[in-house]
């Protein structure tokens, strides 16, 4: 553990990522009390107001304060990211561990299901799921969660396969421990490293995916202060008022970037054998 922190601290980029994420979390938590304006309050006078004293980052076409909406948007994005990544983590890990541990037909069936889900490009699959479920924040979380489940299943399965043959698992089995006990007590703790890394990266994906779905109009409620919706609205105003699209775009990029560098840093620190490769 000490070794982990030492290695992680040396990666200045990853530490910076963590700091930025912490900053976002603070913004998100404080949004209801600290946001300078009501994120929904409209005013024809403040329509497209430039960044300045009243509106630090300007106002959108409805005269809503962009900074306040970004703060509330952080809440939304982090929540979508956390729950979507959580759904994928739990469902994927469970399926992957079962497949890896029991092998045979369990593995065959679960792996094929994952292969099939894996065979659709992520955004298209999320779009179709959203079309089935209908637009809402909860459904966005579910759709993104389903889309990223196979990645976790694959990682959990591969890790389980390699841990399963280890001596301590054999020992537990020979002592008559039940399968569930072994999975929970002996295997899970030993496959957490790659799962933690993937969760961090999935957080980044989920924020991007929510923005993309909302951008296409199949995401959260239209007046929600989602970064993706703000970007979609802003895109039409680029020339009149660059701040409407630029700040949400920066907010998304910075958040995703932070989760990515954090994921890279965790990977290097947790498992030196896994060198940072492609996404």
């Amino acid at each position: 553990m000490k070794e982990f922190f030492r290695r992680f601290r040396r990666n200045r980029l990853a530490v910076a990522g963590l700091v930025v994420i912490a900053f976002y979390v603070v913004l998100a938590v404080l949004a209801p009390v600290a946001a300078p304006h009501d994120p929904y309050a409209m005013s024809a006078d403040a329509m497209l107001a430039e960044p300045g004293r009243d509106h630090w980052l300007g106002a959108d076409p409805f005269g809503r304060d962009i900074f306040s909406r970004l703060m509330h948007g952080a809440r939304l994005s982090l929540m979508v990211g956390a729950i979507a990544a959580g759904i994928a983590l739990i469902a994927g890990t469970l399926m992957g561990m079962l497949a890896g541990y029991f092998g045979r037909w369990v593995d065959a069936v679960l792996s094929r299901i994952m292969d099939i889900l894996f065979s659709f490009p992520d955004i298209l699959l999320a779009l179709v799921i959203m079309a089935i479920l209908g637009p809402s924040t909860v459904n966005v979380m579910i759709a993104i969660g389903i889309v990223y489940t196979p990645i976790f299943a694959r990682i959990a399965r591969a890790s389980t396969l390699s841990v399963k043959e280890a001596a301590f698992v054999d020992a537990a089995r020979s002592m008559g421990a039940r399968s569930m006990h072994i999975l929970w007590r002996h295997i899970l703790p030993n496959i957490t490293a790659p799962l933690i890394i993937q969760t961090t990266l999935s957080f980044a994906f989920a924020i991007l995916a929510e923005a993309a779905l909302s951008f296409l109009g199949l995401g959260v409620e239209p007046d929600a202060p989602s970064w993706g919706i703000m970007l979609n609205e802003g895109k039409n105003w680029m020339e009149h008022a660059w701040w409407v699209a630029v700040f949400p775009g920066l907010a998304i990029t910075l958040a995703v970037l932070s989760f990515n560098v954090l994921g890279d840093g965790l990977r290097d620190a947790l498992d030196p054998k896994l060198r940072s490769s492609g996404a």
Partner: protein
Amino acid sequence: MRRFCAAIGVAIALLGCARESPLDDLPDIPDEPVVGGTLTVAVQSDGRTLDPHRATDAGSMRLIENMYGTLMRYTEIYGEVEPYLAESVTLSEDETTYTFRLRDDVTFHGSGRIMTADDVQYSFERITNAQVRAEQFRHIRSMESPDPHTLVVHLERPVAPFLTYLAYPMNAIVDREVVSENDGSLDDIVAGTGPFQLVEWRKDRHLIMERHPGYHLDGLPRLDRVRFRPISDETSRTTALRNGEIDLMLDVPDKDRSILDRTGYVKIESVPGTFWEYVGLNTDAPPFDDQRVRQAVAWAVDRDMINQIVKFGRAQVADGEFFPTNHWAFTGQSVYPNRDLERARTLLKEAGYQEGFDTEMRVGSAFPYQVAAAQIVKQQLIEVGIDVELISEESGVFFDALGQGDFSMTLVGWLGFVDPDEWLYNIFHSTGSWNQQNYARDTVDDLLERGREENDPEQRRAIYAEVQERILTDAPVVLLYVNEHSSARLYRVQGYRVHPTATTLALRETWVAP
């Protein structure tokens, strides 16, 4: 590395191919129209069919209307019609028999055959069979053609908007021989008499049409070719015009007007138009089955603010009538002259909703300006305690829900109406086919029936003024505004006039300065 440099070289070369002639050099406009040339027109969406009798969407209509002709045609005064493929029309004393004298020089595309009364009669029958607009021809009792260029139509009862229906561009006269050769289908072929004929239709890329050499009016059309390009995104459309990739765009986003104006080489023209938007309330279910709740919404909405933010103040705010200022039936009446929150709260209290209530509003994600307006309405209704959840859906689901009456509130619009009867009957008559609000009032039904049979314009105007006041007081819909219809064109494009109904029939007079 060398290959990398080569690639950069190619990229620079491609950038260099940008249009040579700067659009800022405005050409001299000749006094006389010039014949020839190609015009590229951006449309919002591609069509689904080229069959005028089956088309229901604006995208298809824009593509079809210049390839076909109709017996009557709209004039510049909104709501008025004049003979087009007919030479003259007379109405009998009892107002049930129309006699059309047809032009004898109208030829069909391809075959060049002269249009006869048989084609007209066949077309009316085909429209009836195609269902989509059968309603408009429902009262025809019989038709006969004493000679090839005369058609007599007997109606069961007087139908005031009948001639207006005949001017509707989709009620087109088709070549009956071509239709029967194609087993009744007109999807990808043309059997029209319009100024332009089809060259090629590639879905989502373009539709190209060229001059109909046998067009019956001398000197028209002026263009050799017209190319329609669907560009669904508004900003992309504006950009394409600014870059000279297109010559004419049919819908100008209000927010881009200033940008286009500033270029100096784009001209924008607007007229009050047919497109009106409203908040629809489902009168079948609580809480909006109570007139007082509906009126509360009508008083609580700040139409000016919505107009300022969403339409940049360019729409005509409306609370007492559905017609734009340039329509013959316009009176200028008002039912909810000012926003009145006190009154709204009192009405809600009387209806037993002093605590307010939660409800939902459905909007179509394909209409961003309606999604935007809905967000503002939501904020305004919070002030009287009505908490609205917005549901933005794809067109398929959205219109399905409206059609089945599966909504509490909606924000949506209608467009394309010409006669007051079209405007009101189908939407507010208890048996109207688009009566999504499930609205039913005997007095309103009676007035609408009378308006449909009355041929005297002054009488009709009075009838419709009264029925509108009744409807809007009852508030099954909360009217917001009537939109302008605009188009923007490059400076060199001449002779195109925007029509309130959004038709592009003026393309036949359009020409391009060299």
